């Protein structure tokens, strides 16, 4: 894994190097100019520099125009071109590795109102016990368990080695899953820890962070935001007390990966030719203009590299680890049904874990909504039934004989407001909710009735039970979000075009091969039209996507060329200036 990371860091150095090497060369030349102003340098030095520059031109000639070149010269030329960027990228990666090693992954999750399970609560005791059981089955030291009182149902393994791994579980998970499912889920997490996924997650993170650090360093001359980030890193590196905690590491990591975005406020502000800026600033802008190009070229290349190459590779790697952990879970529990049921249950949930945004790849299922297996979205018939149930539960009785989906939408709105009133303490609203719940569970049994608020929860919420209130709020959110699109992917999952989690369908298929009984429902049947439509779409969009990628590469190349051109002009001007000064 480490070797892989070194390779990635080196690969990251290649785009970097195209920009950095000329810059480095320019820096050397300028320094030489300054030095030779005071004490003239031997002419041999200038000859060498010229030789080096000419070498670069010839390598370019060889690469683009197929001009013949002595292989030895080619080797030296490529070395001169590529090595500095690679060395810098590698050094940055090692710095990141040293910096964040003690923090491990997912440190921020523990600071988010995470607590120990309460041994007097039956479900929480069960959780602690199940973790112990699975650790025994895996032959590992039992990890610590932390509970999060968050509305989303999910779980993650964090830490930096099997010895100090921690398992974070949201409290709602305990209400949603039965013991077997919980066992499967925790076996997945502990299996993942036992397979060394924490180390891999850490390595993946460091690669992304290195990318981010590069971006930050490049931004640093231009604005306060990047400098602030760098200052935080320095403070963390030498930090004592609060600034040296894992949470701070996580915060920095989030900042760094945030810098991977193409939006760079600092740069925009710097080059924003506002009217209030003085002439000095304008001069600075003029002088720094080549650097702006350098900046843009590096960032664009990095972004492209990350989104189209590195991100998908890491995502696929991480996916295969998820499959492996699923298999380990089955090996430990000898019960594939538990994990299959748990995965199914969890992906029905579309609430993200608060604070877990950055570390979303660490969770068992992606906190967004998975659409690969048909979920319980109400059909038209069910919508009409719900509307009918709502009307029938009213004190005055049913007024209509037929109901439409429009009624369903209205009924949902009414339901939400009535529920709010009921939580607020309105007795008639509470009675209405109870009546509605009674009617709906006879009319439309199944998931629809389950997705509605439970009257028992309502009464509990009136007494001030925080768990019931949290459940109700979560239900309200999911109801008001009903019909809205797929949630945006979060964290550095957003940096990759491929999700870090395998789709539920694939996972269930694999579990089925291991003996799980999966109820596919209507989701597995693909109609012929759908298949044809998808094929046509792929046939049309595939070449387009390829063309877009090629175009991107061309844009990157053009940016680098422009950057070189400006740099050369700039350099030439300075060199000429010094030349004039020296000759006078």
């Amino acid at each position, binding site marked *: 894994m480490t070797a892989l990371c070194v390779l990635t860091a080196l690969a990251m150095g290649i785009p970097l190097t195209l920009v950095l090497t000329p810059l480095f060369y320019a820096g050397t030349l300028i320094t030489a100019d300054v030095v030779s102003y005071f004490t003239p340098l031997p002419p041999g030095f200038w000859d060498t520099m010229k030789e080096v520059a000419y070498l670069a031109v010839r390598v370019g000639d060889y690469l683009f125009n197929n001009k013949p070149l002595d292989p030895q010269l080619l080797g030296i030329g490529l070395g001169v071109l590529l090595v500095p960027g690679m060395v810098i990228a590698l050094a940055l990666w090692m710095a990141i590795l040293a910096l964040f090693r003690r923090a491990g992954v997912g440190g921020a999750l523990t600071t988010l109102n995470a607590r120990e399970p309460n041994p*007097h609560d*039956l479900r929480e*005791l069960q959780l602690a*016990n199940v973790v*112990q*059981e699975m650790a025994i*089955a895996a*032959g590992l030291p039992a990890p610590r368990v932390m509970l999060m009182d968050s509305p989303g149902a999910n779980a993650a393994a964090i830490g930096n080695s099997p010895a100090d791994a921690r398992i974070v579980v949201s409290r709602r998970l305990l209400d949603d899953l039965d013991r077997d499912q919980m066992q499967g889920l925790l076996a997945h997490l502990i299996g993942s820890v036992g397979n060394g996924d924490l180390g891999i997650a850490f390595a993946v993170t460091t690669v992304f962070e290195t990318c981010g650090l590069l971006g930050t360093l490049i931004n640093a001359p231009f604005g306060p935001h990047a400098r602030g980030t760098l200052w935080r890193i320095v403070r963390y590196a030498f930090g004592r007390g609060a600034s040296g905690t894992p949470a701070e590491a996580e915060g920095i990591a989030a900042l760094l990966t945030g810098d991977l975005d193409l939006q760079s406020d600092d740069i925009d502000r710097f080059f924003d030719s506002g009217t209030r800026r003085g002439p000095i600033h304008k001069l600075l802008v003029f002088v720094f203009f080549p650097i702006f190009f350098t900046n843009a070229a590096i960032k664009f290349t990095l972004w492209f590299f990350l989104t189209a190459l590195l991100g998908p590779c890491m995502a696929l790697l991480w996916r295969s680890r998820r499959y492996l952990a699923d298999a380990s879970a089955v090996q430990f529990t000898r019960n594939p049904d538990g994990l299959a049921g748990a995965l199914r249950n969890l992906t029905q949930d579309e609430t993200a874990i608060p604070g877990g945004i950055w570390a979303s790849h660490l969770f068992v299922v992606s906190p967004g909504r998975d659409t690969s297996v048909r979920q319980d979205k109400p059909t038209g018939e069910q919508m009409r039934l719900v509307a009918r149930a709502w009307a029938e539960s009213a004190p005055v009785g049913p007024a209509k004989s037929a109901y439409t989906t429009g009624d369903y939408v209205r009924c949902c709105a009414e339901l939400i407001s009535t529920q709010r009133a009921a939580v607020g303490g309105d007795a008639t609203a509470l009675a209405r909710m109870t009546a509605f719940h009674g009617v709906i569970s006879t009319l439309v049994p199944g998931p629809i009735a389950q997705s509605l608020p439970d009257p028992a929860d309502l009464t509990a919420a009136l007494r001030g039970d925080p768990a019931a209130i949290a459940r109700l709020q979560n239900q309200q959110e999911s109801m008001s979000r009903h019909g809205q699109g797929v949630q945006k992917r979060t964290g550095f999952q957003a940096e990759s075009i491929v999700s870090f989690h395998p789709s539920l369908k694939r996972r269930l298929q694999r579990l089925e091969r291991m003996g799980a009984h999966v109820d596919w429902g209507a989701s597995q049947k693909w109609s012929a039209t759908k298949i044809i439509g998808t094929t046509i779409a792929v046939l049309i969009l595939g070449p387009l996507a390829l063309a877009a990628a090629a175009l991107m590469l061309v844009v990157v190349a053009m940016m680098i060329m422009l950057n070189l051109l400006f740099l050369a002009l700039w350099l030439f001007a300075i060199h000429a200036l010094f030349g004039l000064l020296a000759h006078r």
Partner: protein
Amino acid sequence: MELSYAVLAVAIAAVLLVGMLYNGLVVRRNRVQSGWADIDVQLKRRHDLVPNLVESARGYIAHERETLEAVTQARTQAISAGANVAARASAEMQLGGAIGNLFAVAERYPALRAAENMQLLQEQLTSTENRIAFARQHYNDTVLEYNTAVASFPRNLFAGALGFSPAAMFAAEESDRAVPQANFKL
């Protein structure tokens, strides 16, 4: 001269190979031992929980003396079973059966079932049963791996001579596995 160098190289390679194979056996044997120790820990945990369970249950079902005494007796036997894997396994099986019997009886007393203390205790015992089962599973997996390594070529050439004998799995004899039936006479 060159021949002697070749012989020397082959000899060194052979020694290194045997050393590696031997180390692999040692690692596996240690895993088996630690697996056994893990089971032992869980069995002790059960022994410690049993008196608590019996005391809690006695308050509600004092008249089910037979069931309660069977549990206590099975525990005493299990504690004194010694280090022999087979004997230990069958004694522990008896204890597990007696505890299962007690829970089956407890199902008939709603007051006992509903007592919060009893629920937590039952969860602890369920978990302990699971832990024993998983520890056994883990132990048996390690034994399987170790026995396969000992019996397969080329390790079988020297394993016996170096004192690596096959380990026993944690499984009771078929006749010992008969779980005492719950007495459902009322």
